[in-house]
């Protein structure tokens, strides 16, 4: 299977959009302009984009606290996301959710999640809906290496298998859960865990967009064909702290710079497609400019947008006291 030129352009566009978004949020947080807890996805773009490129709005994903990249990859509006992160009235959740809770159910984006391990059971439910109503949809749980250890995740793997659900569990292993190394916290091996539940499981180089895309294609096709759930163990790296403000003293000196220099997923993609003559450097440069501008505009709009007024405090509740 090959990607079309349109798909390649879309993949590059989305990865660049996520990177520009996260770099901008990082700067704005550092400048004290963004309240709350913010977890950035920069460095991990190939995973979210490589998976979501196979999905349409009828397919669902559940994300984690590190949700901006998944949102963008699933088609959430970048302007609405930025406003949400700034707590504005016309943010994607009306300013009530913030970075950790961005959702757009109309796009099949079931939410970033403040609870580690909150997503996998929900994805079993979304997959059950797709199966019962025969929508042809699939449901994908993005889970961190830390989240892979939660009881909810283990229970969901088992349930997805025994109900033969159209689900895929994507373990994004960025090496750390907060300051704790996944090499310590994850006993055994995530591929072997998937296999132990009787499902196909594959290790994936998350720096390589093409490998992610291919592994996701296989797993999603299997789910769509009624052949049940799969596990992907995607190895990657996060460029910023666990949350914004984390000094990252637990990482090795030079660790992030080395990853950026040698295996940045966007740089690798660019090299691959230009060397193979699939896309022109000009086309890629245009996408870089365009996505940077889109994010810059989103930022200006978000800053100018009004916060929710007092009346909003007690809307979206069924009883107000």
């Amino acid at each position: 299977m090959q990607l079309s030129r349109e798909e390649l352009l879309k993949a590059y566009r989305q990865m660049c959009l996520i990177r520009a978004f996260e770099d901008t949020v990082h700067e704005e947080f550092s400048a004290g302009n963004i309240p709350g807890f913010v977890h950035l996805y920069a460095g991990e773009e190939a995973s979210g984009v490589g998976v979501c490129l196979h999905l349409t709005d009828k397919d669902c994903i559940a994300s984690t606290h590190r949700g901006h990249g998944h949102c963008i990859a699933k088609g959430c509006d970048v302007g609405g996301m930025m406003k949400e992160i700034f707590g504005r009235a016309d943010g994607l959740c009306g300013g009530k959710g913030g970075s950790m809770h961005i959702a757009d159910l109309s796009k099949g984006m079931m939410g970033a999640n403040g609870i580690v391990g909150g997503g996998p059971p929900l994805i079993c439910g979304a997959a059950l809906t797709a199966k019962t109503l025969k929508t042809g949809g699939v449901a994908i749980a993005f889970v961190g290496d830390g989240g892979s250890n939660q009881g909810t995740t283990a229970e969901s793997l088992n349930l997805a298998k025994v109900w033969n659900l159209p689900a895929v569990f994507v373990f994004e292993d960025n090496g750390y859960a907060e300051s704790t190394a996944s090499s310590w916290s994850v006993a055994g091996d995530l591929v072997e865990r998937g296999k132990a539940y009787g499902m196909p499981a594959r290790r994936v180089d998350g720096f390589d967009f093409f490998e992610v895309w291919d592994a996701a294609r296989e797993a999603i096709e299997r789910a769509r064909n009624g052949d049940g759930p799969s596990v992907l163990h995607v190895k990657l790296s996060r460029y910023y702290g666990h949350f914004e403000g984390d000094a990252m003293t637990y990482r090795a000196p030079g660790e992030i710079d080395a990853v950026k220099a040698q295996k940045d997923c966007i740089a690798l993609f660019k090299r691959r497609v230009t060397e193979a003559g699939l896309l022109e450097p000009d086309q890629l440069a245009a996408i870089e400019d365009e996505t940077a501008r889109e994010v810059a505009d989103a930022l200006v709009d978000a800053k100018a947008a009004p916060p929710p007024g007092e009346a909003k405090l007690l809307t979206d509740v069924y009883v107000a006291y």
Partner: protein
Amino acid sequence: MAKKSYRQAIAEALRQEMERDARVIVMGEDVAGGMGAPGEDDAWGGPLGVTKGLMPIFGRDRVLDTPITESAFIGAAAGAAATGLRPVAELMFVDFFGVCFDQIFNQAAKFRYMFGGKAVTPLVVRTMYGAGFRAASQHSQCLYPVFTHIPGLKVVLPSSPYEAKGLLIQAIRDDDPVIFFEHKAMYDEEEEVPDEPYAIPFGEANLTREGDDVTIVAFGRMVGFANQVADKLAKDGISCTVVDPRTTSPLDSDTILECVEETGRLVVVDEAHPRCSMASDIAGLAAQHVFGALKAPIQMVTAPHAPVPFSPSLEDLYIPSPDKIEAAVRKTMAS
């Protein structure tokens, strides 16, 4: 005696109790940090640095980092408590109780009674609560009324650094499961805290202000707000008693009711939602026992019955404020 922050007071209590008793251990996610990682050890000391510095003193055998598996490690702490250790487990945010509540309320809380008095479970669960951090719906809840509802759990809400140290030492020495609620917006608050260890008994309310006109019963962070209001209103000739119950279970209802009888007016300030709250509980006790002494309807100042919103503009409206407390006091004085 030196000024210490709420954070330092809690850390000092942990350190002194660990020094005193080798059975006291600390566990939780990144309570030291850096486990298996290439950089520094003790890299975190908890997300807000409360337990930083314990691991270098006591070692990884007594300061245990855990995977993100609250059911397993909170349950392990309960099991260890029932078999001879005195664990202090950190449930990072109380909102995460949903992941592990069975181990707390069906297991740890039940042992003593259900096993006919034969079990002793000296478990402490330290946990962060409260709004004001722009942390949104899943990292800002109060939830202490939920724990207070469960027989077999002791529930502690320290309202200042002094209180935090003495109550945590008591919690660690106590033989029952204790849920110790730390307000995340209070860690940098400072006051004089004795250097030596001291324990504040559970179930004994503290009167932080004494007055004749109105009794304000407040919990946790709300005690400080109530004190501010009492000081302000004193200048206007309204004199308030402020009661800090310290523990919601056991609850010192005697002291609360005595104060209400003396003043004849009651305002209850509770950062949790209004239904089945400490506010409604205290109001109910007063109506039941000292109805005849009441000169005015009881006032409840609480958060609304809604999740905590993210947007700062909404969150500021959500939290009970000194202004709202003052308005409630004035209202009860007017009727």
